């Protein structure tokens, strides 16, 4: 009798629980056929995407794309390594042409002034009644040449030192640019490898989740049954734990393998980059040495063209000597002024070329052609990943819509007065699949 009462009260308790559950379900579930909903649902896709497990990867890609775009927004025109090499060669050609031009003009001017001074000396000597004026004028000319040679040698030495400093600075800029470029390339390769491995891990995670989705959902539905007895609940929970553990252990194994691959790849890249840096920087230094040697030879040629200086004869009157000295000063002054213009023009050209050279080598070589390539690759991956997320969200939303009896479900709506917002349902569903 007492047992019967207990049994009856158990049945009543179960019925009451079922009723409560019925009310809860009725209270939570949308009435999809009401006048306000009319079988119409909508999903705020942007919101759902933010809750997708792959969203963090999508954000990383977005950040990487934005970073490259931000770097590219600078005023520099991106150039590839080959373009830089070609433009450097062109600048060097222009520099050599400017040097040759300046040397030729100086030599021409020198000849002209020598001739004019010679004529002035002859006229002065003839006026003073001195014979053998031609030889004397030649000696005077040699004097002029000797003084000019000394001045030119000083100028040429100063120019050579400036050139040396400039070439060494260019060498340093080019070397550091090459080092930076090679290191950036290595870093990009490493990042690409890391991203590829990460993508593989994500794919595996998604594959495992999809593979177990049906089983997981079935177990969860069983677990959501309030009337389930404790033993069955424990068994179901154990099955769920098994699935989770199996997935976790597969993921862990994959992660460990990937980490080892990455370590090995880093070591390989370091070796390759170190070798490439030594080789390329060595080549730049060899070029620098050759350039300096070439310029030294040019300076030597220039000095030789100015000639030597024999001694003056001692039998000239003081007046004639003074007159010849005045003529000499006059022509030296005129020559220096005239030659100075040519040298200034050459220096201006050289400064301009140096500036262009520095700007060219100051450009971030690593963030140019390679960056554009990386940007393209990142954008492609972003599109693919986003599509992957969308596909899953659409599949899940469609299943929910079908289960709940919706007639149509929209995305990307501007405003809703009616219809049912399925966003949270889809978010819950996606999160439950990836717990």
């Amino acid at each position, binding site marked *: 009798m007492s047992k019967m009462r207990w049994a009856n009260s158990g049945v009543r308790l179960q019925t009451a629980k079922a009723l409560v559950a019925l009310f809860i379900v*009725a209270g939570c579930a949308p009435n999809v056929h009401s006048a306000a909903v009319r079988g119409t649902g909508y999903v705020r896709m942007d919101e759902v995407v933010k809750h997708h497990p792959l969203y963090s990867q999508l954000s990383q890609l977005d950040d990487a794309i934005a970073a490259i775009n931000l770097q590219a927004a600078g005023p520099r025109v991106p150039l590839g390594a080959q373009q830089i090499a070609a433009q450097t060669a062109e600048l060097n050609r222009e520099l050599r042409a400017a040097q040759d031009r300046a040397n030729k003009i100086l030599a021409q001017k020198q000849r002209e002034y020598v001739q004019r001074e010679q004529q002035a000396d002859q006229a002065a000597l003839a006026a003073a009644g001195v014979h053998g004026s031609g030889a004397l004028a030649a000696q005077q000319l040699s004097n002029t040449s000797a003084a000019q040679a000394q001045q030119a040698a000083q100028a040429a030495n100063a120019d050579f030192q400036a050139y040396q400093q400039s070439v060494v600075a260019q060498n340093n800029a080019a070397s550091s640019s090459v080092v930076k470029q090679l290191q950036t390339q290595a870093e990009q390769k490493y990042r690409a490898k890391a991203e590829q491995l990460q993508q593989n891990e994500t794919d595996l995670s998604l594959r495992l989740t999809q593979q177990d989705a049906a089983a997981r959902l079935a177990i969860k539905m069983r677990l959501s049954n309030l009337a389930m007895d404790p033993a069955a609940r424990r068994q179901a929970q154990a099955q769920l734990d098994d699935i989770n553990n199996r997935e976790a252990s597969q993921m862990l194994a994959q992660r460990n393998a990937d980490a080892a691959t990455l370590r090995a790849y880093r070591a390989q890249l370091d070796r390759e980059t170190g070798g490439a840096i030594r080789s390329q920087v060595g080549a730049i230094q060899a070029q620098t040495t050759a350039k300096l040697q070439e310029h030294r030879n040019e300076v030597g040629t220039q000095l030789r063209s100015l000639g030597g200086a024999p001694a003056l004869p001692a039998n000239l009157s003081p007046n004639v000597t003074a007159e010849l000295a005045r003529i000499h000063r006059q022509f030296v002054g005129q020559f220096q002024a005239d030659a100075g213009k040519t040298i200034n023009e050459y220096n201006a050209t050289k400064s301009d070329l140096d500036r262009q050279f520095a700007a060219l080598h100051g450009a971030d070589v690593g963030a140019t052609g390679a960056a554009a390539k990386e940007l393209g690759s990142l954008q492609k991956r972003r599109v693919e990943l986003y599509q992957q997320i969308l596909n899953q969200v659409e599949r899940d939303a469609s299943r929910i819509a079908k289960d709940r009896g919706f007639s*149509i479900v929209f995305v990307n709506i501007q405003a809703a007065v009616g219809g049912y917002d399925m966003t949270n349902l889809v978010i819950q569903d996606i999160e439950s699949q990836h717990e």
Partner: protein
Amino acid sequence: MNLRPAILFAVATLLGALLAPGAIAADLTDVGFVDQAELANLPVFVNANRALASYKAQLDAQYNGQLRRARTDAQKQQITLQFQQQFNDKQREIVGPLFQRAQLAIAAVSSSRNISVVVDKRIVIYGGQDVTKDVETIFSSPQAVSPPVSTPPPSEIGFVDQSVLDGIPKVQNANTAMSQFESTQRQLYSAKMAQARSDSDRKQIMQQYNKLVADKQDELLKPLVDQTQRATAEVARKKNLLLVVDRADVIYGGSDITADVQNALGK
């Protein structure tokens, strides 16, 4: 205690609530969709697009040449407008008749199926009537397609033309201010990025830049976006619409509420 009457009462109340006449209405079934990507793969569209692309390539070469010779920004702008106009004319000439025929085919299918609105497939993820194949059949038939005798029936799906709303002076001003702000900041932060020495520095700079832009968006654009959404919902409520989508996603029919939203925002 006997629970049976209470259970019966509860179930009856629940069923009553669920099945009350006011709570039940016919589902929305007069919505169709077209897969425009599939239509674009029809040979006539493919050929037309190819011809247009070839024309554009020629035009681009001329455009770049003229742009290089332009001395002022005003000249550049004029050249750009002129070439844009030329391209639009050609587009109308080549693709216009095809679009017109496709529109007639969509209207014919909608009329025969009592569809009040046809939208792009991208915005329907479940249900609705897929009319793509029917449209393709009519479009590809050799006969001329006649326009339907009646206009589409009123739809509970509304749409707004975002490009028109963007033209409202206050929206336009806000968008311009935002663009200028972004442009200036991009230059500044780009220079900072160029000086960054490590990935961590670059990440920090990016975060600062993103926050700056997001804050400015919240300040300049968000109030207008919220206002537009409220105005759109209010107009939709008055017109007994269920949902409002973007004009760009509507291919046929639907209720255009752009002017009403524009007026509401202009107040």
